[in-house]
């Protein structure tokens, strides 16, 4: 328990905790400094997320060079103290999350100013930064109870963010999410309690070492069941998804983008982490055949998500149901549990964060400029907002899994992984869902480019002229669109990291 100067004073040693502390401090500062000027909140949020992104990038490089980094909270040695761990696996996810949050913050200035009442903007940024600190904490922590606390921090700030939507249905969406999210989190903490009864420890590494002896104990199996159900509720796996569509539809644009890109992805990450690093692959494959259940559930999620998305008229709701389908891809790769499929699953966390974040940013830009959310009203928007709609088209192609886009890479790894594991019957599921994805995105692309102008657009000012979204919004959206293509063409970098992470997870 020595308070070594190396751990406390040197900035390099404290990088893992600074990733959390900086957004957290900024969240506290936001309401205060916004008294100076209302746009200070945005500058603060951008700076904080940018620093967090740089720190997480440096952490990722440290991990690639020198292996797992561990930080002892208050210098208390694990398993007693809380430990922050950065390995291949979560270092990658951390960098992705930090990057996406930075880009979305950069994008959001105008959108927030328009959609959030002026006196609430300081508090909006406070909750926003708290949300980001929470998701980063979920990724980085090595203590399972600390994980629960971060899950609740994220959720609570999330409820506040959703309720700031303009439509009054946002309030009910937030309330329903609160009820279901609390059920999920309480199941999680109940499962953690049972794990603590069985092992007497809360440190994830320690749990992994102590659990295998008692795998046949009913306490451990009950704990696992509670944690799985709780997490599936939080990540909106198909039958437990009912909170998600309304949340994505009615929250402010920037919140939809942030939540679609990060929150469910992070919960999927936690699912992977608990399945494979707290429990071991033998447990999930042999002792409790949860992967078999998860394969069925994922397939149902993939098909049903795409099917319901087909019938939507509101574009935000369509993207929300599409997200439910995409979550299925991530859990499917995890459930197949071979190295290739797992790589596909991990790379899909990055890819889907890129694609869905970007698509919601496009919708945010359209809402900012025209207030349109119905697909029918979007007719003729291709001429009006050419750059934004180009980004949308790239995102749509990527979601379908068009070659040379990121969506293709993850589907390729998932499909080859499924075939490699002898589960060829999963390939048609992927194909059918891709076709349905093509259908529902084509409806939008068709109405944007190949129809006349809708009545709604005719009523706007200067219906004939190009009327692009503000520069900041367009540039960030196009940047993500560019990355969708860049990582589709030169995928070796992220794939390499994801492969290592998959090997780490499967313990080989």
């Amino acid at each position: 328990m020595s308070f070594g100067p190396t751990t406390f004073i040197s900035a390099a040693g404290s990088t893992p905790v600074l990733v959390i502390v900086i957004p957290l401090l900024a969240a506290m500062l936001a309401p205060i400094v916004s008294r100076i000027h209302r746009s200070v909140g945005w500058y603060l949020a951008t700076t904080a997320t940018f620093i967090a992104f740089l720190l997480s990038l440096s952490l990722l490089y440290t991990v690639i060079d020198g292996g797992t980094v561990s930080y002892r909270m208050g210098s208390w040695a694990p398993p007693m103290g809380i430990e922050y761990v950065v390995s291949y696996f979560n270092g990658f996810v951390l960098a992705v999350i930090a990057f996406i949050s930075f880009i979305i913050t950069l994008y959001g200035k105008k959108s927030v100013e328009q959609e959030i009442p002026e006196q609430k903007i300081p508090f909006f940024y406070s909750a926003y930064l708290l949300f980001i600190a929470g998701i980063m904490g979920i990724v980085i922590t090595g203590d399972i109870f600390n994980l629960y606390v971060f899950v609740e921090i994220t959720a609570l700030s999330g409820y506040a963010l959703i309720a700031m939507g303009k439509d009054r249905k946002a309030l009910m969406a937030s309330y329903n999410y609160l009820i279901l999210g609390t059920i999920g989190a309480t199941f999680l903490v109940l499962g953690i309690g049972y794990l603590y009864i069985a092992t007497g420890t809360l440190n994830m590494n320690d749990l992994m070492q102590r659990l295998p002896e008692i795998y046949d104990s009913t306490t451990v199996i009950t704990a696992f069941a509670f944690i799985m159900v709780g997490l599936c509720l939080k990540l909106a796996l198909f039958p437990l998804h009912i909170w998600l569509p309304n949340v994505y539809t009615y929250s402010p644009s920037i919140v939809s983008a942030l939540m679609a890109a990060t929150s469910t992805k992070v919960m999927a990450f936690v699912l992977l982490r608990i399945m494979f690093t707290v429990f071991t692959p033998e447990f999930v494959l042999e002792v409790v055949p949860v992967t078999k259940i998860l394969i069925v559930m994922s397939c149902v999620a993939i098909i049903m998500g795409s099917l319901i998305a087909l019938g939507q008229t509101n574009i935000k709701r369509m993207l929300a149901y599409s997200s439910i389908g995409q979550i299925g891809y991530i859990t499917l790769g995890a459930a197949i549990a071979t190295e290739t499929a797992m790589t596909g699953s991990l790379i899909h966390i990055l890819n889907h964060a890129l694609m869905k974040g970007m698509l919601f940013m496009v919708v945010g830009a359209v809402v900012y400029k025209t207030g349109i959310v119905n697909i029918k009203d979007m007719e003729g928007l291709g001429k009006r907002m050419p750059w934004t709609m180009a980004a949308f088209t790239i995102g749509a192609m990527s979601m379908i899994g068009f070659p040379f886009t990121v969506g293709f890479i993850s589907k390729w790894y998932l499909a080859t992984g499924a075939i490699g594991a002898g589960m060829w019957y999963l390939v048609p599921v992927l194909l059918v869902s891709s076709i349905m994805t093509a259908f529902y995105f084509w409806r939008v692309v068709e109405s944007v480019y190949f129809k006349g102008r809708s009545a709604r657009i005719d009523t706007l000012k200067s219906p004939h002229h190009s009327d692009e979204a503000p520069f900041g919004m367009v540039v960030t959206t196009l940047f993500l669109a560019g990355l969708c293509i860049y990582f589709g063409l030169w995928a070796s970098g992220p794939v390499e990291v994801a492969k290592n992470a998959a090997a780490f997870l499967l313990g080989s």
Partner: protein
Amino acid sequence: MIEIILGKYNYWIYIALMMIGFYAMIAKENLVKKILGMNIFQTGVILLYVSISKVSGGTVPIIWDKGGPYDNPLPHVLMLTAIVVSVSTTAVALALIVRIYKSYGTIEDDQIVVINSHDGDKEIPSEKASTII
């Protein structure tokens, strides 16, 4: 059988509390009653944690001359955190309910569903929304 029921009565109470709370969260239409259910639900979990910290014959976990077996203090500390989480969730939920009442004029879930299905997208009246942060 009697031993399982009486000897572990605290666990039975915890299960009963959780089920009562869970039922209220799902089945009640009144939004405030759902939150009451949520509190009971979370209290059940707190009871579980506190129960498991008891060591038979254990005393208060303060190191002093007599020594002896101590109760495990960790679950209590964990539950302090969980209580804070529960309180803040309740606060957020109640703040939401106030805003829901102001914009819908009711806090019955079934009536709100009817109102939502009848009218389209309706914005929150701004002067009402601004009273609560």
